């Protein structure tokens, strides 16, 4: 099949280490070494580039079904591929909500049809994200989508009994509850981080304690029922402290931070430009530094983009009327390079851990996040770390124009992305989607990628 | 609200009226005003900010000196015309100056408008409009220290200190001790390149 041809990547620095050649055949990495030869393979000169395991996003809003004006699985996964991602977890707050096997299978199939990245649906924890009764978690886990991550993201599972039951129940199929930690009563009408800036701007504050109190409760619940908890988009210094404490006690908690929370602060809200309106809100410098430190020391396990595209009218309005969220797939690598690598906090090996290995492990994705060595699935991202580019939302593949980084110059550029041995991105541009020759047949497979083995 | 700063300096300038010349001219105008009015009865001198006002005060003092029945303070006033200008949209924002009327007001008075330089006539046009909102004078006359020509409206002065033929690239500067803290003088500046 043409989609699984042979490629010889010459002279890439593998995960930032010494230069080596990578041979890709039939969807697998078949060789890593110096001066590899392969007749008939397409040769890619990767001199100066870094080879990374394909990035995996635990937190993506693809909007389909229901809000195809904001994003579709097709456009969102194009953005993912261009951003260096080979897998994304599609959040459940679509319309209808992904709270049944039918919806998650639909999203899964749309991802396979698109072929730009592996799309793993996240199942809703509660029916309609209403926080009242559990969705059919088992049915979603057993579906063709094989859901392992469950989240009411956008809403907090605030009822402690419901949260306890969810944590317990997903143990049956090795699932994880990804909590959007936001105490609802403490954040009624909240518009931005509560602090010095909100005081001046006269906007209802979103206190750090609203996030931290839920995280504190949830890590104790996770400990009590011995289940896996994942904390979405950690945004405060206090949250990092609580998670560090919980990990120290051996609680099975993992945590995620978004690229924007590693850089931007509530000072930007002074413009009242809703492109900076996001949930959780942008916090302070102190929080940004604590998040970076937590990510560097492993307290925070993964980068999650919380890619949240919106149509322009949802942001071209008053702050209070505007939708919350920022796009992130096409800027994540650059922002993390800028905030974490160029600041000296982590190296590229750590980058691979937080953007690929750990998110794949949390999401239980067998064919993602593997080390770049012979035998691994060929999910590879080639990055030019020396490149500099200026963010232009209009030039992005996502339908969302709501990038908070618009106009900023960022380091690092994705040159190529390989999904199951097929280049979805070449020379920094979309190439062709991965196709296995029979979309209908693929939809019938529990995992499309398994057939590449 | 910031103002552009005057960018360059003139290529040349010459003094056309000295302190003594100005005083002589004002003395003559004061006498002309009294003569035209056949005395000081009902006279009010309304100076146009900024430099018309000190000139009106000086004229009032000279009139009071000639006619002891007159109090200089009682016949001099200030008339701000800023809000009545026809070039508000073409100029940097001008904050208004105070308007101060003599105690007896303007109704049925003989009002002499006083300004430093008469040029296009537009300031006087604005002053006539401003007067209408303040009262109904019996007669309005105009006294200026310098008439430099180039009128754009059918307006002429009744009393002129000095007629100064100028070209439009020239500027006429009037400096008065009360405002400029230098000795009185009138200068013509050449702003041609």
């Amino acid at each position, binding site marked *: 099949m043409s989609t699984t041809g042979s490629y010889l990547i010459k002279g890439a620095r593998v995960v930032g280490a010494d230069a080596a050649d990578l041979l890709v055949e039939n969807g697998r990495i078949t060789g890593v070494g110096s001066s590899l030869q392969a007749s008939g393979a397409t040769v890619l000169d990767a001199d100066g580039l870094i080879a990374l395991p394909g990035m995996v996003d635990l937190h993506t809003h693809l909007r389909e079904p229901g809000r195809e004006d904001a994003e579709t699985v097709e456009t969102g996964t194009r953005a993912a591929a261009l951003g260096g991602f080979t897998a994304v977890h599609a959040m459940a707050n679509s319309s209808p909500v992904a709270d049944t096997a039918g919806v998650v299978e639909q999203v899964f199939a749309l991802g396979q049809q698109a072929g730009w990245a592996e799309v793993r649906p996240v199942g809703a924890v509660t029916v309609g994200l209403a926080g009242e009764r559990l969705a059919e978690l088992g049915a979603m886990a057993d579906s063709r989508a094989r859901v392992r991550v469950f989240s009411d993201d956008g809403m907090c599972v605030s009822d402690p009994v419901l949260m306890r039951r969810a944590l317990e129940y997903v143990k049956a199929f090795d699932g994880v509850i990804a909590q959007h930690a936001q105490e609802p009563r403490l954040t009624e009408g909240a518009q931005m981080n*509560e*602090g*010095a800036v*909100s*005081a*001046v*701007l*006269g*906007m*209802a*504050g979103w*206190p750090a304690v609203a996030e931290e109190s839920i995280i504190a409760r949830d890590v104790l619940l996770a400990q009590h029922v011995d289940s896996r908890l994942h904390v979405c988009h950690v945004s405060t210094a206090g949250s990092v402290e609580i998670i560090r404490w919980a990990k120290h006690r051996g609680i099975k908690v993992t945590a995620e931070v978004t690229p924007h929370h590693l850089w931007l602060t509530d000072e930007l809200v002074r*413009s*009242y*430009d809703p492109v900076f309106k996001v949930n959780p809100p942008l916090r302070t410098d102190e929080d940004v530094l604590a998040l970076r430190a937590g990510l560097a020391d492993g307290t925070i396990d993964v980068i999650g983009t919380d890619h949240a595209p919106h149509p322009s*009218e949802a942001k*071209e*309005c*008053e*702050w*209070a*009327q505007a939708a919350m969220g920022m796009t992130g797939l096409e800027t994540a690598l650059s922002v993390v390079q800028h905030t974490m690598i160029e600041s000296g906090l982590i190296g590229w090996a750590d980058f691979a851990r937080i953007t690929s290995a750990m998110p794949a492990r949390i999401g239980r994705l067998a064919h993602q996040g593997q080390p770049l060595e012979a035998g691994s699935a060929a999910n590879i991202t080639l990055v030019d770390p020396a490149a500099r580019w200026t963010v232009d939302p209009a030039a992005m593949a996502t339908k969302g124009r709501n990038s908070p980084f618009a106009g900023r110059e960022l380091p690092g550029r994705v040159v190529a992305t390989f999904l199951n041995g097929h280049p979805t991105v070449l020379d920094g541009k979309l190439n062709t989607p991965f196709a296995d020759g029979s979309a209908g047949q693929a939809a019938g497979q529990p995992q499309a990628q398994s057939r590449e083995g | *609200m910031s103002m*552009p700063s*005057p*960018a360059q300096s003139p290529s040349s300038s010459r003094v056309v009226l000295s302190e003594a010349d100005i005083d002589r001219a004002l003395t003559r105008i004061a006498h002309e005003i009294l003569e035209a009015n056949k005395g000081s009865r009902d006279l009010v001198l309304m100076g146009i900010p900024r430099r018309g006002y000190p000139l009106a005060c000086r004229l009032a003092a000279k009139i009071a000196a000639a006619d002891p029945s007159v109090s200089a303070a009682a016949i001099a006033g200030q008339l701000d015309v*800023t*809000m*009545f200008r026809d*070039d*508000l*949209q*073409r*100029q*940097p*924002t*001008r*904050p*208004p*100056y*105070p*308007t101060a009327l003599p105690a007896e007001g303007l109704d049925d008075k003989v009002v002499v408008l006083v300004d*430093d*330089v*008469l*040029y*296009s*006539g*537009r*300031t006087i046009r604005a002053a006539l409009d401003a007067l209408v*909102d*303040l009262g109904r004078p019996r007669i309005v006359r105009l006294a200026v220290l310098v008439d430099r020509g180039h009128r*754009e409206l059918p307006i002429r002065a009744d009393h002129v200190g000095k007629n100064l033929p100028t070209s439009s690239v020239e*500027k*006429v*500067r*009037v*400096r008065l001790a009360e*405002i*400029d803290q230098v000795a009185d003088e009138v200068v013509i500046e050449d702003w041609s390149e």
Partner: protein
Amino acid sequence: MKHLLSTQDLSKADAVRILDTAEEMAAVSDREVKKLPALRGRTVVNLFFEDSTRTRISFEAAAKRLSADVINFAAKGSSVSKGESLKDTAQTLEAMGADAVVIRHWASGAPVRLATSGWIDAAVVNAGDGTHEHPTQALLDAFTLRRTWARTNGTASAGTDLSGMKIAIVGDILHSRVARSDLWLLRTLGAEVTMVAPPTLLPVGIDGWPCTISYDLDEALAKRPDAVMMLRVQAERMNAAFFPSAREYSRLWGFDDRRLAALDDHGLSDTVILHPGPMNRGLEISSAAADSPRSMVLQQVRNGVSVRMAALYLLLSGESRSTARSQADTPDTVPAAAGTAPTEENAS
């Protein structure tokens, strides 16, 4: 000055200039013909997304006294309530020829958004936005206070500031756009400000503000303020547990008859009481206090028109939207200042 959005970005020179201009406008209001032709042919739109008859008619009177055409656009019952966006509404108004948009909005920052989004070219005047700012209210308060302070000091008010004046602002600071605008402006003008409120009605993050904080109104009055500004308190706040009851609020933070008498006991014969209105008599202020000779409430209303005339005049006159004429003679910025740039009649 292209827009008037906030008092935080107002320099002292600008603030004094607005207040001085307002003094001249106030003089016009005392004349028989209370009208100036300065804004003839210009259109001012009052765009109100929130009911405020007082503020609207004050702006309307101000614009009309400057001969501007006024269009009132209340968002209630209009296309705005049918889902038309702020952007479309503003662009529609500009297409109808609005030179200035006076906007009142329930959402903090809406005027800033309108001014900085590039949707329209018109000058934007913030007539109160959410719990953010209400700059013309602050200017009228400052105008009223400046006249009071000048009288106390036996000077004329034009050209002066509030240096040394002690002002207590009392009440719901958390939800008050007036308190914020007042604080920034009064500080810029040199006053010392104390904020007095129950801790629940002070914003988190207030510690960085240039003022003293007090939970005790009696203690604040004992510190001999020259003016006390009472803020409106909405009784509904008690439903959100900001305070236990209206009675308790009134007892602890209301300006009641006992506190009115305390001003006399402290020998504060010149201390005045302000309130932005509308007042809740019996809640944050007693009738005796509201109607006492110390009360500046009606002066505030009167001064509001003068201050808004000054703001509209300074925003809408001038060459902001036409090409600057660098060769034009520049009139002096502040009338009181000695002339450095000699003027001649009809310079251009």
